[in-house]
């Protein structure tokens, strides 16, 4: 499902560098990525999603060699195959809950917004306890509800791969567990691959495998004790 080989990535200022000789994650696997701030967790997630391109090496995601694709093709691939969950929810304040969930269908022409998609979005919202809140704006929701909307948005196009960047960082333990349950449940049901970036070592027991991303970071400026950029 995810295959990285001889990957090298550095930001323009040269202050941060990632090198991954080999990393494989099988289809249906649930993996937790840990590491201190600035160790490259989010950067690696973006490389796997095709948001960033490496300076060298190869990235295969869901059977596609992303490093061989142009920007437009990577975007089309990403929106159809990769569900992204962000730490800060990243909901659009002017859209209702339902419209936020359907957002991927409105921003890329490779997805077609049809009735069946709307039904699926409503069902997802029902499943996560947001069925009565479809017309509400994000400002009227609690933190936990917002993150559940963000998770529904990541799941609505039935992705094969779920990438969640610290999805529970802004949530209380109850909501955090609920969000992880939803992601976990989806991955199990759809046999999708789940990668969760987290600082929370308590949740690691949920995953099949835990990878310490800091081992890929070769930057001289990076401080393994926990300093550095939030790369």
């Amino acid at each position, binding site marked *: 499902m995810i295959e990285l080989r001889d990957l090298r990535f550095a930001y323009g200022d040269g202050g941060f560098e990632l090198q991954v000789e080999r990393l494989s994650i099988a289809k249906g696997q649930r993996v937790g990525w840990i590491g201190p701030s600035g160790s490259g967790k989010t950067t690696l997630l973006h490389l796997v999603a095709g948001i960033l391109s490496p300076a060298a090496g190869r990235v295969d995601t869901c059977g596609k060699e992303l490093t061989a694709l142009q920007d437009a093709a990577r975007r089309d691939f990403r*929106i159809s195959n990769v569900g*992204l969950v962000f730490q800060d929810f*990243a909901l659009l304040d002017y859209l209702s809950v339902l419209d936020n969930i359907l957002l991927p269908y409105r*921003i890329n022409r490779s997805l077609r917004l049809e009735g069946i998609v709307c039904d699926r979005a409503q069902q997802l919202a029902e499943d996560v306890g947001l069925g009565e809140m479809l017309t509400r704006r994000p400002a009227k929701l609690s933190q936990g509800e917002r993150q559940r909307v963000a998770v529904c948005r990541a799941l609505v196009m039935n992705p094969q791969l779920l990438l969640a960047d610290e999805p529970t960082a802004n949530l209380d333990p109850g909501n955090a567990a609920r969000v992880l349950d939803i992601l976990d449940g989806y991955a199990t049901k759809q046999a999708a691959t789940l990668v969760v970036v987290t600082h929370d070592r308590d949740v690691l027991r949920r995953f099949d495998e835990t990878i310490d991303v800091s081992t890929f970071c070769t930057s001289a400026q990076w401080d393994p004790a926990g300093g550095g950029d939030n790369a």
Partner: protein
Amino acid sequence: MRDSLYLAWQYLRHHRMVTAVLVASITLIIYLPAALQVIVNNAEEHFRSRADSTPLVVGPRGSSLELVLGSVYFDKPYEGVLRLEQLRRIEEQELGQAIPLHARFEARDCQIVGTTENYLRLRNLSTAQGRSWSLLGECVIGARVAEKLGVQVGDKIPVSTSTAFTLDNPPLRLHVAGVFATTETADDEAIFVNLETTWIIEGLGHGHVRGAQHGSPEAKLYTDITKENVASFHFHGNRDKFPITAIIVTPASDKAQTILLGQYFSPDETAQIVRPREVIDRLLERVIMIRSYMIAIIAVVSLVTLLTMTLVIVLSIRLRRAEIVTMSKMGCSRFTIASILGSQIAIIVLASSAIATALALLTDAYGSELVRLLIL
């Protein structure tokens, strides 16, 4: 495109106040020059058509513009005075038709115009209700006067000019004999009486109990002229010296016009003759110049407004950076992001244009009304 429009519309709906301010600003930028153009064009047409139907005007020396405005457009009571002998002078030469006007007084803020039946023929004035005046003290009112004062045939309108009356000469009450059909000209705003009635108003004639000595208690002056007392009305003094304010002259020929125009060149001459069209053209040149200045000012204000709006839009895009980054991460192309932002601007501009066009059409439809309200 449909999805971009949808997202743009949702954004604008959510930020109603900002959207309303932007739409209002652009609407004004589009509408103001258009409205100015419509109003000026209507004013030009209005002034020119009236001036064109008034070949020559003779009046006292002084401002030709005031003479034309006071005697052709009845904009306010005209203070200048000519003597009736000026009318005789033109009539005796048989150079054309001369129509006297007396426009010095008002009744309930409406101009009273003393004239002859020839004026009604010159302006094609016909009564929509009642009849023309036949008695001293009767009036025929313009359509707007009837509407404004809420009077009809048979009602009485007291003359309100204070200067013409004394305790010995109480205000006359004009009997409404008829209402003219609407003409969309200054005639709609005036009260027409025969020339003699204006002299009664002026105090040059009056009526009282027959046989009573002037100044005696029995010689109480009538304030209503009726069939019963009209015969007692009489004038004092030399009629040739009675006042009028202007004479409209329709020359019999070009030659007659040239002769007439030449007669008023002498420096000793107390009257002047003007071609209203020339006077109005000079006035409109000024108006057009002022319009150009106004359009320049509007252009500068519009430019500043557009720059401010550009700043608002740029700032709002910067504020939405996180949203744009999120969409981009999810798989949205720069083109789609640009099309969402472009759709927002397009919706605002289209809405503003539609409102401005509707307002401009309304302004055009009510152009003459506006000209009357704002200019006349």
